[in-house]
């Protein structure tokens, strides 16, 4: 009897520790292989055969198809340049320079990684179509309200996640290195 109780305890502990820890670890963004530049983070190894087993498991659970090294690299940001969580209650300006790439797109998602409905049906900007200043730099404004210039509409009551995808960029072969990415500056909030 005593043996059975002890065995039951051991099995319960094993299941709890084993599955519990696995779920805890796999429910978050990948821990390993992250490369951060300012507010942006990329996982260059994501989806590659060299990726660690945790990254592979997280990828399989999410169902994403990451960009291959020959395609490009994606940078993700949940925070502005000062480290505050991106929120639809504030306006943000994404501005500056992007690393060399033949094409890039900037897409706004909510905190769950879903695109947001908006009256003008715009969920992203592509490098070819943004209005630029004379020196080639640009500013994209994220706001729930209409703003002049490059307006990327967002939901007022959502957390935000930005994804900057660089296509055909030397960063995938030479590494992210000291690449300079756009700043995300917070404007007015309500």
């Amino acid at each position, binding site marked *: 009897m005593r043996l059975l109780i002890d065995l039951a305890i051991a099995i319960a502990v094993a299941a709890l520790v084993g599955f519990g820890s696995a779920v805890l670890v796999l429910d978050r963004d990948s821990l390993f292989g992250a490369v951060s530049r300012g507010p942006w983070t990329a996982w260059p190894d994501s989806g590659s055969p060299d990726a660690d087993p945790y990254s592979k*498991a997280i990828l399989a659970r999410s169902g994403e198809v990451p960009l291959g090294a020959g395609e490009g690299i994606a940078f993700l940001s949940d925070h502005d340049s000062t480290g505050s969580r991106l929120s639809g209650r504030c306006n943000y300006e994404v501005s500056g320079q992007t690393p060399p790439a033949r094409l890039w797109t900037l897409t706004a998602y909510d905190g769950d990684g879903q695109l947001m409905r908006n009256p003008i049906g715009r969920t992203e900007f592509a490098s070819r179509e943004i209005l630029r200043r004379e020196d080639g730099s640009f500013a994209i404004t994220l706001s729930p309200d209409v703003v002049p210039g490059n307006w990327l509409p967002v939901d007022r009551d959502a957390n935000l996640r930005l994804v900057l995808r660089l296509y055909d960029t030397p960063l995938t072969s030479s590494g992210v290195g000291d690449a300079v990415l756009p700043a995300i500056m917070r404007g007015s909030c309500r």
Partner: protein
Amino acid sequence: MIRTLLYVLGGIFLGGIIHIAVVLLIPDFANRDAWTSMGRFGPDGAFHILPMSEPGTEPLPYLDPRLAHAACRFSLDDGPIRIKAAMPDEFWSLAVFDRRGSNVYSLNDRTAERTDIDLVLATSLQLTKLRENPVEALDQSIVIEIPATRGFVLIRAFVTDSADTNRVNTALKAAQCSAPLETAPAPPQPAQP
């Protein structure tokens, strides 16, 4: 008491093994992974155009809403497969993944140095056979060794504006995921007199 404690310790140790097993086996058994999700779009062995990502209807998570996508699940069980597509003169890229979602190969229109796609996917055994008996039609093809027998290919193509969607979709629709290895049977050689 001490005995129970030992069993608890044993349980924690076993839990560690379960943890490792779960993490290692998830790519094979996940039911929301990319390979499984792609089964929704149509039968294997052919490209299917994924609906453009729009709020509320994203075919796969985190696909660029600005790009058109076509996906094909393939199997190498019945021999090598050949992928052919004539792509528009804009940015496109292609990536080959194995069943577990590892990226085996990827290229874009500039690295391909041509606007059409012509790839042959083969296992290492099939590759050896192909090398022994080269198929002339495959001279210009990029031949890739796949360390698995099942996987998927995803083509991404940039859509410049909404008017461009049709052009890109037409190209993606015409993409072949199981093109014949030999384009035409070789004409019989005339008998030597």
